């Protein structure tokens, strides 16, 4: 029994780690640019398709990943900010959120038209090793390791570097940040670039198991959104905790609860938190409303 619980915990953490990476993006964009990006799940699909596209063109995987990262930074970072967020933000947060929903539909259809409606395999790691009765597979361990390193690096960047602190200042109060001489526009742009990097990492980690398909993003994005709410939408560490918690709860619920309701678990948690703890586990109370 203990080993099964430990096995479930590892599996839940591995899924949750990917949710966390995507949820961090939700949190960063909200803090940096008051953007609730409902296309975040589809942002994961785009680099996955780009990697497959580059490998189909003959690039080895280790080169296709940075090439896809460059595409993601350009399209999901710079273009997204310039073409959609910047013009829409003046109209209000809700209008922008609706625009990202439209972007989600647009992206899915572009991916379907260019890549087809079929699923595609994606290279990943197989095998693992036993630790007592616990089996640890390389793919899950890699997901956990990459997430830990990424979150630690992001945390160090935000708290220990000048640029990171400037980003935090911008997130807390853009007007004061401007008075302090911080290039607020550059900081906001940097937030979008970091989000593009995070979704590319998530794409590389999630695609070997989930396959690459134009409409995978919807479900993943919704779960990551729930994770960000549960953890606290305005805190990066909240997104991490929310992601991991959701992954574990989802795994245990699917194992011990009725199969048919497994996809409802993130939604139920989301509703409970919105009702009883709207600022999430680690989030701050805010006056702003979406």
């Amino acid at each position, binding site marked *: 029994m203990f080993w*099964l619980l430990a*096995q*479930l915990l590892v*599996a*839940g953490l*591995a*899924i949750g780690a990917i949710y966390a990476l995507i949820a961090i993006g939700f949190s960063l964009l909200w803090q940096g640019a008051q953007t609730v990006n409902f296309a975040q799940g589809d942002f994961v699909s785009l680099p996955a398709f780009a990697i497959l596209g580059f490998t189909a063109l003959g690039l080895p995987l280790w080169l296709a990943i940075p090439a896809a990262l460059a595409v993601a930074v350009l399209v999901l970072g710079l273009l997204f900010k310039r073409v959609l967020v910047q013009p829409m933000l003046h109209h209000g947060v809700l209008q922008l959120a609706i625009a990202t929903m439209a972007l989600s539909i647009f992206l899915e259809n572009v991916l*379907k038209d260019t890549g*087809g*409606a*079929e*699923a*595609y*395999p994606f290279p*990943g*790691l*197989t*095998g*693992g090793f*036993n630790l007592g009765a616990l*089996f640890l*597979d*390389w*793919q*899950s361990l890699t997901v956990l390791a990459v997430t830990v390193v990424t979150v630690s690096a992001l945390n160090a960047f935000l708290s220990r570097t000048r640029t990171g602190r400037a980003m935090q200042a911008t997130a807390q109060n853009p007007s004061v940040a401007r008075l302090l001489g911080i290039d607020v526009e550059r900081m906001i742009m940097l937030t979008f670039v970091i989000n593009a990097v995070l979704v590319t990492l998530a794409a590389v980690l999630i695609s*070997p*198991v*989930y*396959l690459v*398909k134009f*409409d*995978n993003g919807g*479900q*993943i994005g919704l779960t990551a959104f729930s994770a960000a709410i549960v953890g606290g939408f305005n805190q990066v560490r909240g997104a991490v905790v929310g992601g991991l918690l959701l992954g574990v709860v*989802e*795994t*245990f619920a*699917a*194992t011990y609860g009725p*199969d*048919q309701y*497994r*996809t409802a678990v993130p939604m139920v948690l989301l509703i409970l938190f919105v009702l009883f703890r709207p600022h999430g586990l680690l989030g701050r109370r805010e006056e702003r409303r979406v």
Partner: protein
Amino acid sequence: MSRSRPGPSPYALALPALALAAIGLATTAPKAMAQDLQIAIPAELTGSGASVGVLWRDGAEMAIDELNAKGGILGHKLTYTVYDTQTNPSVSRAVIQKALDGHPYAVLGPVYSGSVMVDEPLTQKAGITEIMGGVADNLTAAGDPTIFRTTAAQSQVLMPAVIYMKDTLHAKRVAMIWVNDDYGIGGHKAMQADLKKAGLQLVVDDSAEAGQISFAPDILKIRAAHPDAIFVYLHEEENARLMKGLKQQGIKSPIMGGTVTDQQTIKLAGGAAEGALSIGGMDISAPVPAVAAFHKRFLARFHVEPDHNALQAYMAVWMIKAGTEKMGKADAKGLAAALHGMTITPDKQPGILFPMHILANGDIDNGSLLTTVKGGQQVVLKVIPPAQ
């Protein structure tokens, strides 16, 4: 001066003649210029069933083009319209209604049993033949005289699979995971009964949703139960996600299932599909030269590997040809009756790649295959001949 007797002018005489000629032309026109036969092809072009629906459409298109190149059916050219069911039964019903409004000669598809289930009453009411790809037993159990299969039904292949697990794999404890739609529910129900009959214990009985992307909890349940065999009754994409997870978790119990040796599953699961076993209807790996030739033509035309869905849709078009030729005329309402009880053989209909007997309820009996995956290819271990 003579005066000719007044009478009808040559022009006036010509008028009735012209009218008669026109009537004659009008009545003979259908024979000289045979009307096109419109085929409706509803298929899962998007959604979780896109992997199979696209191949179904391509198989049908290829057969129609080849038949048209040979002069069509009794002089009638075939035309077709493709409809996307989005792997969604309610959309499927809507597109079938739209297709029927266009008065098609026959409906080919869809593939998913859940979609067929909801649109079948419409084709039955219209009296239009529907040749589909579903395998759920209940599709042909309701006495619909217009519904036809293109492959073996669940009940025709599940018991042989149970017997194989018991006698060859020496399994006593079986884990089963099934998709929560009409295909999976039908298979689950039949499998529960068959396992019980064979005295095998079902140690994991787990359902998954169509389009489900995470199988970690299911895999851990299977891992904890240490089954002697795993029976997988999912669709191709979900097969691949599950099988990759099983391999990642180092689970070595043999995998048997519905479409686990299918080309789409192999493509998506890669090495994780190696060694999987399936008993199913005739497939692309059938050791038949005509199937190999079909495989080659399909690959050359579409640059993708065909699977059993492509093969079934291809033969479905030839079923229409066989039925129409039996009637001696293109009668949409009479086609279903003509097909019932027919035995169609490749010597008479070259696009029927192996002999096929159509049963009274629309099921077909053309044998089945025990297949495995070896070196990334579906390999036939045994050909199980037709019962008749």
